[in-house]
């Protein structure tokens, strides 16, 4: 992976100026490289990783993993029905998977009821959805490489040879 991407994937707030210093390049070149990544869709978005458990009044208090069994459509396979499903704002992630089920969704809602209603009223009635299995998340430990725990304090002694 390009080091610019490695740096940004660790901390998206790192400025082009700082990246330039780290890689000993001109800030202008870094800016151009980033712009190119953005344009090509290599870099899609910059955002904060939020520990939802610590946020009050969040719309994403409850998360469920939902396995969906679908009947693929002629000509377009799974893509068309996947699009119908992932277009719902409640669906935060949608993957086509191998195994017993076809799609794996991550659905967010402000409470159990909201998520249950989404499954019962929006998802299940879809024509090509043959079945679902909903797993509510009880606790998040790690997400996208980030361990959801307070930063631990430095355990090194302050000075040594």
């Amino acid at each position, binding site marked *: 992976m390009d*080091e610019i991407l*490695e*740096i940004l994937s660790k901390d998206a707030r*790192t400025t082009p100026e*700082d990246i330039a*210093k*780290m*890689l*000993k390049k001109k800030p202008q070149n870094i800016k151009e490289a980033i712009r190119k990544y953005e344009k090509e869709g290599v870099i899609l978005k910059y955002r904060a990783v939020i520990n939802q458990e610590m946020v009050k009044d969040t719309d994403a208090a409850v998360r469920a993993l939902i396995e969906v069994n679908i009947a693929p459509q002629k000509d377009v396979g799974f893509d068309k029905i996947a699009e119908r499903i992932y277009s719902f704002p409640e669906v935060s992630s949608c993957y086509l998977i191998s195994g017993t089920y076809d799609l794996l969704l991550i659905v967010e809602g402000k409470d159990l009821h909201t998520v249950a209603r989404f499954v019962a009223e929006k998802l299940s009635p879809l024509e090509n959805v043959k079945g679902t299995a909903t797993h509510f998340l009880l606790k998040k430990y790690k997400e996208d490489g980030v361990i959801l725990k307070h930063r631990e304090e*430095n*355990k*090194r*002694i*302050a*000075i*040594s*040879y």
Partner: protein
Amino acid sequence: MKKIISKKVQEMQPSGIRAFFDLVLGMKDVISLGVGEPDFVTPWPVREAGITSLEEGFTSYTSNKGLYKLRLSIHRYLKNNYGIDYCPDEEMLITVGVSEAYDLAMRALLNPGDKVLVPTPSYVSYGPLVDLAGGEPVYISTKDNKFKLIPGLIEKNIDKKTRAIVLNYPANPTGISYTKKELSDINRVLLKHKILAISDEVYGDLTYDFAHTPFPSLPKAKENTLYLNGFSKSYAMTGWRVGFACGSKEIIAAMTKIHQYTIMCVSITSQMAACEALVTGRRSVEEMKREYKRRREFIIDALNRIGLNCHKPQGAFYAFPSVKNTGLSGLEFAQALLKEEKVAVVPGSAFGKGLDDYVRISYASSFDNLKEAISRMDKFLRRRNG
């Protein structure tokens, strides 16, 4: 009271900056650039291997020389990566860090009055341990040669009593390292004068501008080298205390004699974790190395920009700038910087004579910390210079 302490230890010079260290340890909210160890924790697979070994009940002694499995892994690592072939049975010893290996070497090699060349600036234990073993350290200042050791400097200091030289590259505290060509030149001189190279390459994996060349991989060097390395810096395993020595059958046997009476063996937990480090830890080494390199680019430029002249180190995670133009000695600089801006650095005088104008800055600290430290140092310098 003093009489119960041996004359030798009484004569040992205590570190002149102990008081400064105590001052740092007593202060809160300090950004410390005074740390001689990685800021990463040991990679998880390695820690996990340590835990598993405990769960499985591996709590006994190991062979004096260390777990055979670990020696074999080191053998393979050195052979596959550098083409150096050390026999795991007879030419290798697992030690409590490089520190123990170095101490054993001194005690195994030196007769009273034998001299060991110690290029300075140097890591703090090299000289005193020569003394303790009854030898005589001969310090070679590299300051006027941009901290680089060259054949001329070595030859100038050799006499009939010279037995060995300590090499340490990339170096603590300067970060200086050597290309294959430079090392070959040094090797030729050592072979010519039959001076044993004791090569501490614990920072070898953290070499940024060219490939690291282990000293024993040079032509005809293996028989004339005691190669010391360890897991502390590459794998962020300082607290596990695992190092190793590779050398001739004769030297390793002699070192093992002392090791078996004093240490017996390295903790089995640590040895088992080290085995894992050589297997799955390499990826982490590369990642940490890239990170250190990025910090190096930043910190060296920044130090020079704010007025602390600093050469560019090729490895390790230290910068060794001069503070001469502040009008302060390294110790005064470190004290004032700590007091006024709460940034800790190590005075250069810790690493040898004639280094009063320098401080050691460790960049084994997060980029945010480094940025903040630089901005505080900048403030500090501006205030000084009016």
